[in-house]
Each structure stands twice: as C-alpha cells, then as structure tokens.
C-alpha cells in the first residue's frame, strides 16, 4: 500500500462519539452561561491608546510656556522699548528741558543709556555722538568702548555748551533706544554771590590799607589780601566756565544674549519630553536588559525541559 492510499484510507475512517459521551457533553454545555460582552485587552487598547495620546498631546501643547515668559522678563529693558525714534526723541527732549534762567549760574549733569541692535551699531553710535558734540561746540572728555563677539558696550563723557544741551540730548537720543536717563542740576549762583561779596570786602580792606602810610607790615598784608582776592577770582572763573558746559555721560550697549538663548519654538515641550523619554529608555535598558536576558534564558530552559519530558511521555 502506497502512502497516498494509506492516507486516503485513514481519511475515509469515521470516528463518532458514543451516545453516552454526547449526552454528558450536552449536560456540560447546558450549564454554560449566556455569553457576556467581550472586552479583550486588544479592544481596550484600541480605545485607550488614542485617549492616552490625546491627553498627553493636550498636556504638552496647552502647558503654559514658562520659559518664554521668563526670557521675556529677562530681556525686557528697564524702560519700555520704543521703536519709534521720533517718540523717543521727544521724550528725551522733554526730560532734559530743565529751565535755565540766564541770570543764574548752574552746573548741569546728564546720564543717557541707549540700547542698539548690533555691536556694529555701538561703534557707529560712538562716532555719531562725537560728531554731534563737536558740531554743537562741545568736546569729548573720555571715550571707552568694548566689543565681545556679538555684544558691545561704550561709555562716553561729553562736554556740551549749556545753551545747546537740549538740542544735543535730542540728537543723541536718536542713536538708539533709551533704557535709562538721569538729569542733575546744581545752582551755583548763591556761591558766586558770596564769593563776589568776599572779594568786595577784601578789596575794601586793600583800599583802606593803601591809604595808610607805607610800611613793611602794611605791604605784606596788602600782598596777602591781593593773593587771596586773585585766588577767589580764579575759583569764580572756573565755576562759571564749568557751568557754561553741561556734562553728558552717554552709555551705549547691545541687548543681552540671554534673550536669544531662551527663545523656544512651539514644539520645545515635545522635544524636552522626548529627551527625558529617551533618557528613561536608556536607563530602563541598562537596568532591565540583564534581567530580561536571564528571564528569557530561564523560560527557554523550562521550555526545553518540558518538551523533553513531554516527548518521553508520548513514547508509549
């Protein structure tokens, strides 16, 4: 008999369960409860995975961007940035519009801090400030400028005629955006009046001494008084000269680099989440991989032993 005939004969065989077995199985099956609704783990995953993804996406995308706000706070200048140069100029002119009566002598000190966009603008600003100063009849007392990569800073001390200070400040304010301004005036009129009175008093003493008969003692006193009068007159002249020029401290700088560093895109949160997820996966692999390998080896060993026992059992 060929193998094909053998299989055909085996397939033609019919095995039927005896009636008593059929009856027993029917009794068993009759006790089966009504089929409940089946919620398998696969079906549950079909619902749970999209829901979990939606919740995660909502958390990531609706979380307030704290970093961005902090960065803006850092980058915000002390005085509101005014991109409109005309408005800034007007404000500067108003700030420096300190009344200066012509019959009074006052010393004038101003501080002006400006922000420019690039390091190159700082260099240009220094040149422009010096040009404005000389065009108005003033001069620069000191200039200091530094550049570090994309950031730069410059400090200038300018002496400008008091009568033209308002125009000077208005033009200097156009170099950049005002971040700080300060004006200080000190009235020197009373001091000069006292000096004048002192000089007059000393001159009267000199005149009185000159009416007296000449002597060595008298000549010495007259010389001392004249020296004192000359010293007072020089001091008075210095004060009037200083009051003729206003001192302007000009500070130019570029914005802090920190603003650029803290600007994050809309997907920054996703990037951070994925980074931490990657770190977690690496740690999990480093810690869990040896354990997983051991478990797999154990499972394979158990399987081999079971298979051998089963084969031995079926060799009957």
């Amino acid at each position, binding site marked *: 008999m060929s*193998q094909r005939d053998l299989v055909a004969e*085996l397939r033609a065989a019919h095995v039927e369960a005896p009636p008593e077995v059929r009856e027993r*199985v*029917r009794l068993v099956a009759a006790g089966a409860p009504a089929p409940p609704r089946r919620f398998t783990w696969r079906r549950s995953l079909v619902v749970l995975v999209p829901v979990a993804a939606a919740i995660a996406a909502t958390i990531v995308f609706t979380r307030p961007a704290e970093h961005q706000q902090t960065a803006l706070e850092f980058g915000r200048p002390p005085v509101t940035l005014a991109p409109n140069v005309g408005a800034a100029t007007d404000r500067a002119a108003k700030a420096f519009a300190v009344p200066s009566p012509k019959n009074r002598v006052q010393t004038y000190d101003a501080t002006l801090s400006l922000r420019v966009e690039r390091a190159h603008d700082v260099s240009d600003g220094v040149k422009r400030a010096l040009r404005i100063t000389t065009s108005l009849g003033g001069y620069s007392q000191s200039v200091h400028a530094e550049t570090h990569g994309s950031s730069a800073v410059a400090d200038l001390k300018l002496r400008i005629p008091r009568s033209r200070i308002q125009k000077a400040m208005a033009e200097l304010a156009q170099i950049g955006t005002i971040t700080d301004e300060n004006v200080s005036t000190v009235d020197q009129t009373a001091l000069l009046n006292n000096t004048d009175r002192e000089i007059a008093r000393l001159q009267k003493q000199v005149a009185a001494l000159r009416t007296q008969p000449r002597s060595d003692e008298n000549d010495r006193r007259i010389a001392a008084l004249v020296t004192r009068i000359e010293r007072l007159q020089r001091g008075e002249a210095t004060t009037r000269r200083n009051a003729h020029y206003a001192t302007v401290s000009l500070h130019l700088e570029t914005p802090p680099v920190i603003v650029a560093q803290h600007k994050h895109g809309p997907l920054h949160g996703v990037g951070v989440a994925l980074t931490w997820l990657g770190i977690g996966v690496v740690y999990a692999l480093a810690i869990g991989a040896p354990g997983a390998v051991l478990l797999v080896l154990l499972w394979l060993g158990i399987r081999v032993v079971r298979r051998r026992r089963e084969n031995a059992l079926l060799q009957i």
Partner: protein
Amino acid sequence: MTFQQAAEAHLDDVYGYLAWFTSDRFAAEDLTAVTFERALRLWHRFDPDRGSVRTWLCQVARTVALDHFRSERRRTRREELAAPPEAIDFRFAEGLSPDLEMALARLTAGEREVVALRVLLDLDAGAAARILGISATNCTTRLNRALKKLEEALHVAA
C-alpha cells in the same frame, strides 16, 4: 458562536483525536467529558482572532490527555510491580483494515497524535503545529515519519 454550538459541532473531532491519541476508548470517553468541562471554564479566554474553535478545543484536549498520560504512567509503574497490564482490544475507527488498525496500535502516542490531527481531523500544518507547540516544519516531519512507519508495518503484515 456559543459554547453549546461549539460543543455540538466539534464533539466527534475531540473524541476522535483523544481516542487515537490514547488508543483507549474508555479513557477517550472520560477525557472528552473532562475536556468540555474544562473548556466551559476557560470559554471566556477563547479569542476567535487567534484560531478556530476546533483548534482551541484540541489544545484543551491535549492538556487533559497529557495529564492523563502522567497519572497513567505513575499508576502503571506501581501496578506493574504486582501484575502486567492487560492488552485492551481497541478499534480506532470504523472502516479501517485490521492490518492498519494493528499498525496504528504500534505507533507511539506522539505519532498517533500527529496522524490524528493532520489526517483524521484534516488540520493544516500551522494549526496542528500550534496544538502541538512545535513549528510547522517539525510537525510535517513528524507526520512523514509516522506515515512511513505505518507503511513499513503494513508491508511487514502483507
């Protein structure tokens, strides 16, 4: 499909598989009942996406049969000391020649099992391999060996 429908449809398959596997009619009758009792308890675990009802019932039947073989082995070891086991006259199926019946009886339980699954129940190699817990290739190899053994036994008888 309800459990009652599954039991009604595949009772003969399960009985035939167990009868050929054990080559013992009385044991097969008992094991068939035990198989359906166990299947009823496990019915909530059955997933139609992972295989047919017949395959799943045969897997349950195999577990029951293996438990039976283990307990039988322990029992016969004890009893062989007292008296040798009696030869049981068993017919595998209606319509088989006496020579083929004898050749089948000479196969091991493992060989009869694969013949029952692949030939009697006409399962494909994948389904039979899933029940046996081996690869499809291994299953086909086992079947070929069993059939060759049957063929040789029939030649000897002829």
